[in-house]
């Protein structure tokens, strides 16, 4: 897929504490009734890196995103997002922090009674400080990024699953957030549409240097992201030459029984001797 050229906008970088990490989980535990979903897990997401989170269904992958966003609170442990401890913040304080984070939900979660324009513009309109002309310009820019400018006046129900996912990405990136959280962005999509979504995520990573956590079941998507980069001149995703795949800021996190059993890049993943992981990636 070739995407239209976009003017480069570097997002404002907020205070980067705790070793320049966008997100830091420290000894986080969460249980629902008697079931322990996350068991004392710790990991970090360095600024500018995209981390793919894997695990079997029910292993707590989506929960990690909701915890990072402050939509849920852990039973114990600390979660730092852009240097702020979200476990200690009130809902009102979290609203301010969330304006610096974009989230793409598993089922898109578009507002079904609003048009694509209103969905993408939602955050800008809520800010109340952006002029109508500026909102229109940025909505068009975000929609052109996902190649859906023509759907601006349509309702979500009129779009296909893949298009809805792309609108959700446009809604998440319209304010150029510092962190992006993707919850199964390619789940249930055909291979062609999945590749389109993956290319958008790679473009966001390489052009805007956005830190991202991506929950997914699809290993092939993460492998593509680890072995490809977005070429701004060619304006498309290209494969890295052999031997330089670790140049891209891409990492893998694997969960099992509520614990982190792997946290590293593609090279480390390929070298691992853990039987479970080898079977998982086989």
């Amino acid at each position: 897929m070739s995407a239209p050229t976009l003017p480069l906008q570097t997002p404002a970088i907020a205070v980067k504490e705790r070793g320049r990490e966008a997100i830091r989980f420290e000894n986080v535990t969460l249980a629902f009734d008697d079931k322990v979903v996350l068991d004392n897990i710790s990991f970090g997401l360095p600024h500018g890196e995209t981390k793919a989170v894997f695990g079997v269904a029910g292993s707590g992958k989506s929960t990690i995103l909701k915890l990072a966003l402050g939509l849920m609170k852990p039973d114990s442990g600390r979660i730092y997002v852009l240097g702020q401890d979200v476990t200690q913040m009130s809902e009102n304080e979290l609203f301010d922090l969330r304006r610096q984070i974009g989230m793409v939900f598993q089922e898109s979660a578009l507002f079904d009674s609003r048009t694509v324009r209103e969905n993408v513009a939602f955050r800008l309109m809520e800010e109340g400080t952006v002029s109508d002309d500026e909102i229109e310009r940025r909505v068009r820019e975000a929609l052109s990024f996902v190649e859906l400018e023509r759907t601006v006046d349509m309702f979500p129900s009129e779009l296909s699953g893949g298009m809805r996912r792309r609108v959700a990405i446009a809604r998440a990136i319209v304010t150029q957030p510092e962190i992006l959280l993707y919850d199964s962005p390619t789940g249930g999509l055909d291979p062609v549409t999945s590749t389109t979504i993956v290319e958008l995520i790679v473009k966001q990573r390489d052009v805007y240097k956005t830190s991202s956590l991506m929950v997914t079941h699809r290993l092939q998507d993460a492998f593509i992201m680890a072995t490809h980069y977005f070429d701004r001149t060619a304006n498309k995703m290209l494969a890295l030459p052999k031997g330089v795949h670790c140049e891209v800021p891409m990492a893998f996190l694997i969960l099992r029984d509520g614990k982190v059993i792997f946290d590293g890049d593609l090279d480390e993943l390929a070298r691992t001797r853990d039987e479970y992981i080898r079977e998982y990636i086989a």
Partner: protein
Amino acid sequence: MAAGDIQIPLRSPAEFAKEKVKALQDYALLVGQSLANLFRRPLYVTDMIQQADLIGVGSLPIVILTGGFTGAVLALNSASTLSRFGSLTLIAQLVSVGMVTELGPVITGLMVAGRNSSGMASELGSMTVTEQIDAMRALGTDPTKKLVTPRVVATVVMLFFLTIISDLLGLVGGNMVSSLLLGLDSRQYWTSAWQSLVWRDVTTGLIKPVLFGFVISTVGCYFGMSTRGGTQGVGRSTTQAVVVASVLILVVDFFVTKLLIALLGYR
């Protein structure tokens, strides 16, 4: 247990009580937040006007019909009793006081509860189960401020005016029966209806819709926001919202009437 039987987990009385107390606590929190949001910016005035149109203008036909026919049937039913005592002329007084103090607010409240409490529960419930409420929070917007407070304000304001319309239409209905079926003088009816009302009746009749409006909207929003379990859950929330709002209207009506009698005395 035979194969295919559905095993329903039994809850202990303690768990049941804990669940109910938690629901009450969540409802109280939502009520508190919806009121506190009135003093926080932004106020979402456009959303309030939009909701006022949906709730107020949208409910007008059913309020006109129910108000009119309630007044008419009140006149019809009381006519036989009053004529037995030779007091048929008191019919205007009975319809007037009955509609303004009790039937107008309660019937209008129940109608609006049936129409709008269910609407709010199903709309917000659908948004909850499709993660739209979470998406709103993720986008940095407080759903109680954006969705709940405008509905509460709009329902309280519009139910106040809808009740006045219902009262008036009830009196018109009573007048139709008394003049067309009972042969009473229309001018005498209106004079008697007007003179029989005292300020206590009007105050009682206008305080009630404010409280009922608050009950209808907060109950509808609470059940919508706490929906769990997909489309089946949305259906359950919608039913519960109507039932709870209707019952609460009657309960609140009793206690408010008792309180106002204690404060203002019998007429």
